């Protein structure tokens, strides 16, 4: 058995799972199942930014591999494809080289929304959440504009805002708040709260919060605390970002 190739297979699949936003227990379980299907007895440990896999056989030196996971968003399609491929490989372990080939080409199998559709998603979320929080039709349209601004900034502005989640969220929240304030002053929006809250829903760390609690309940306390810290940071960033234009607005 070629341990190196097997390790690479596990690491590549694990890395993709992690960067699609899967929970820790799902990543660990999938890699363990996959490597067991190939007759190895792996030890796997994952934290939100790192994945460790080690293999040891009785009369061979132990080998181990570490994989750093960069900052990532959520990509449910990639998650589903990874899961599907992992299940296929577990049921029918094809030669390691072929499996590796399939894992490295997973991204090609994934459908991806083009940026216009994702922008439409931002518009839809903010516009309908404004209505949801008791806004009127003009509020819905203004919130949609705020959402488009955040969407553009999130999709194309990463070079300026950087990958630091705290700074990026502050910028986005400030953008939302400033747009909402300006639209209110211009007489388009009628209800500042509905517009701001509706638009902030795209930034609120609901996903991270749910994930954090899920990790803790699943027993991965370390990852759970890590994600909880992220939630607190993002929430602070939102509060800070929203407050800035409102404070400045009082003097205009």
């Amino acid at each position: 058995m070629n341990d190196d190739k097997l390790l690479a297979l596990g690491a590549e699949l694990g890395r993709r799972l992690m960067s699609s936003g899967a929970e820790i227990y799902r990543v660990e379980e999938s890699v363990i199942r996959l490597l067991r299907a190939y007759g190895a007895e792996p030890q796997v440990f994952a934290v939100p930014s790192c994945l460790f896999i080690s293999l040891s056989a009785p009369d061979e030196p132990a080998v181990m591999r570490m994989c750093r996971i960069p900052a990532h968003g959520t990509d449910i399609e990639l998650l589903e494809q990874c899961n599907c491929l992992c299940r296929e490989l577990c049921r029918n372990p094809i030669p390691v080289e072929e499996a590796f080939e399939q894992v490295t080409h997973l991204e090609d199998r994934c459908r991806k929304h083009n940026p216009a559709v994702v922008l439409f998603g931002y518009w839809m979320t903010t516009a309908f959440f404004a209505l949801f929080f008791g806004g009127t039709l003009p509020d819905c349209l203004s919130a949609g504009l705020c959402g488009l601004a955040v969407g553009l900034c999130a999709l194309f502005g990463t070079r300026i805002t950087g990958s630091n989640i705290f700074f990026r969220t502050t910028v986005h929240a400030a953008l939302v708040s400033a747009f909402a304030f300006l639209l209110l002053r211009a007489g388009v929006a009628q209800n500042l709260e509905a517009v701001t809250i509706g638009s902030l829903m795209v930034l609120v760390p609901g996903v991270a919060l749910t994930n954090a609690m899920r990790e803790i309940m699943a027993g991965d306390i370390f990852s759970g605390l890590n994600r909880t810290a992220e939630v607190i940071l993002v929430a602070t960033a939102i509060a800070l970002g929203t407050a800035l234009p409102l404070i400045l607005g009082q003097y205009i």
Partner: protein
Amino acid sequence: MNAILSDYFLPCLWASLASAGFGLIFNIHGRGLTICAFGAGLGWLVYLLALDAWGQDIFAAFLAAIVCGFYSEIMARLRRCPVTGYLLVALLPLVPGAGVYYAMQYCVQGENERFLTTLLHTFGMAAALSVGAMLVTSVLRALLPKFHRAIH
């Protein structure tokens, strides 16, 4: 009739449409998008009904999270997909975004007492949601281990 429309139907419709937008951002395709949107609407309907019946919003959020959890687990098993996506999107309307906003506003205005009350209440809602959703996953895992293993 009109009251039902404006009190129950419309909020649920807005919630599901907004969540469908989130589904697009999370790169969910096709039928999964409809499932997520319906789950979000269902969760909010349960929340509203429970709020009317008992008047306690944290308990209502807990019940809604349980219903969302069940719905997502069933859909995930039917479609043989990870439950993560459905659950995240279905819980979105319940996530206390407004609470975070008001807490921040009280903090900026220097009203410390109201700030702390709102903040604690927001944490309570968040905890109720996560416990409710995770309870379903844990119970199903414990009750149906074979089923779980077969489907992965």
